[in-house]
């Protein structure tokens, strides 16, 4: 099922007047893992910001479920429509892992009656036990923080998950675990997972690989 469509998406930074993305076209479907690869500065993270609703494209359109993101309430979209996993986790540092999840559920207006119980379950699913769940983020390792990041991305029940270099700061063992979780989300839970990376190991789990170069994105492999 078509989850996200990019139609001639372009992006120009105000100051540089340089087109970072130039007429990008792509279709992302549910149940698949996509990776977007490219050199540093190629526009990977910019594309991810546009898809995440953190920024707006200067030309073209991004359709989520057939609706143009530019016309949607982007706060609402970020809260419910998409789950974002950041390379540097971006969690509330002095809150516990569980509190981060509950807060995210509150923001997405989750109907779950036992939010804390749901948060523990979600964290357990990504490999965080209850004791660890009650620790503040500052006391967790990078791998644990990334697992919390994944759990948070899932907390609003989105059909689309995007991850920006999710294993960039992790060791190989943890990277493998994280990738297993992400592929499982696509292949088992039917979510559309888009991973921005330049790691070969990550591209190895992808169903579809896109490459960005010179502001243009092309399908490298399927």
């Amino acid at each position, binding site marked *: 099922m078509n989850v996200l469509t990019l139609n001639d998406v372009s992006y120009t930074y105000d100051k540089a007047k340089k087109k970072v993305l130039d007429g990008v076209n792509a279709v992302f479907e549910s149940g698949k893992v996509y990776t977007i690869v490219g050199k540093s500065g190629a526009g990977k993270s910019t594309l991810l*910001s546009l898809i*995440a609703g*953190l*920024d707006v494209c200067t030309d073209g359109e991004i359709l989520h479920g057939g609706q143009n993101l530019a016309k949607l309430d982007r706060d609402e979209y970020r*809260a419910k429509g998409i789950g974002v996993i950041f390379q540097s986790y971006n969690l509330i540092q*002095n809150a516990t892992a569980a509190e981060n999840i509950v807060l995210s559920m509150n923001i997405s207006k989750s109907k779950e009656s036992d939010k804390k119980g749901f948060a523990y379950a979600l964290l357990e699913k990504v490999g965080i036990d209850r004791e660890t769940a009650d620790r503040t983020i500052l006391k967790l390792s990078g791998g644990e923080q990334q697992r919390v990041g994944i759990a948070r991305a899932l907390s609003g029940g989105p059909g689309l998950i995007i991850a920006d270099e999710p294993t960039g700061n992790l060791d190989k063992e943890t990277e493998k675990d994280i990738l297993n979780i992400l592929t499982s989300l696509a292949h088992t839970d039917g979510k559309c997972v888009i991973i921005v990376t330049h790691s070969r190991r990550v591209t190895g789990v992808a169903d579809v690989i896109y490459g960005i170069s010179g502001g243009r994105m092309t399908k490298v492999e399927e």
Partner: protein
Amino acid sequence: MYIIQNAFANILRNRGRNILLAIIILAIITTSVTALIINNTSAAVIEDYQFRFSSEAFIQLDIDRLTSSASNGGSAGGNRVFSSASIPQMDAELQLMLTDSAFLKESLATGSVRGNSGDIRAIDQNDEDETDPSQPQGIPGAGGMAFRIGGDMSNFQLLGDQWESFTEGVRSLESGRFPETDNECVLSVDLAEANGVEIGNVIHFTALLSAGLPEDFDVNEAEDGDVMEVNGIDYTVSVLNRDFGIAGLNREVTYELTVTGLYYDLNDAYENEMLSGYAYFNNRNEVLTTLGTLLQPRQSGESGVQVNVRYFLADPAYIGNFEAEAREKGLSDAFLVTTDERSYNTIVKPVVELKKISLIFMFVVLGLGAVILLLLTSISIRERKYEIGVLRAMGMKKSKVALGLWCEMLAITAVCLAIGLGAGAVLSQPVSDMILVSQVEAAQEQNSAPGGFMTVPGGGGGGPVRIQGSQMGGARIGGGFTANAQPLDEMTVSLDIATLFQIIGIALALATAAALAGVTKITKYEPIKILMERN
């Protein structure tokens, strides 16, 4: 709801930073509470005094005018003493006539007469000093001015309509009832027991009433005991000082009073130890009756019955109207109609200064405190920029981020408010006392000039002219100024509802301003920028 929960959680999560904020807010609130309590109590005290002093109208001899005319006509050398003829008088009739003024809320007329009795003996009465009714008692027409202690002496005071001591609780009716009509009286239990007086007995009191000297009266041709007819009434001439030309015309009147009650007196027998033993000054010898009783035998223009009327204006703004009415009814230009501004200023000035100081102090603290608080909040928010970026990236709306920050600041402020109110309420009294003491000292230094007497140079380079401020002629006018007015040196401050709401308002404004300072700063950034900056 989760915004509030998250705000409370954030307060604990960022406790170090919040404690610092709380200390600043607490200092501001405590200072503001202290200053506001002092300020508002001062304002209430000032307003109260303002109303009291401006609502009571005084008809007062124009001392400046009198001394000016005295200086112009003064004799060479020596002290010049005013005789009854030279001091303008306001007769009791006019005083009482003014009580009907439409501009008054109420008036209080009282009177007194010095008397003796052949029926009963006063407590501490000294037979050797007992007044011979045929002898004059002081300066005619200058009632209450010249008592010769131990010489010519009345033994009783007949008081007309002076019932304050009963309402104040220092006297109470032991038996019987208060006078309901004229010619009835109540006596002290001690006086009644000493003389075997019972309720229903009739007692006779004698008093001297005086007439003004006719213009053609020549003191050098008059002798003590001469009888002179004035307005159809016979008076006995009394020459007090031939050299100074002081003489009087007196006649004896008799009050026949029925005792209707006996009162118990909690007052000391003598208010002044120096006067102990003189029957006239013994409180137990006071005979309480109606003013109408005292005025009954009095003819128009006669002195001897001291009348004192206090006028309370319906509105302080009516002072001009009241004066116009008094002038129309015959009040001489020698009198001023005024409110007691001088006493008001003397009494209230330290409180006014205290109010000013507290207000200035509060504004300074609020101003400086607000600047420090805004800076501190601004720094604090900058530190939380990343957290806010994360919340925004998670989809939290700007308004909710702002609401969360405001809730945090409100919660901190609320805790500080509770502590600050307590601390301020405790601190305000000693702080108020401390400032008031210094202000009273300053005021007393300023007011160290003589109060009751006014001294001006006598004409012809002679000695000073001395005029006693508040008494004159046959009547004491309108209560007079509070000659011995002392600065208010005690003020009980307390936290009232109005102050409480003002403090809450200030606290709310502080919390909002502090939160706004941070929010406006942070919401300018898009979450992507905050996160990119961080990453």
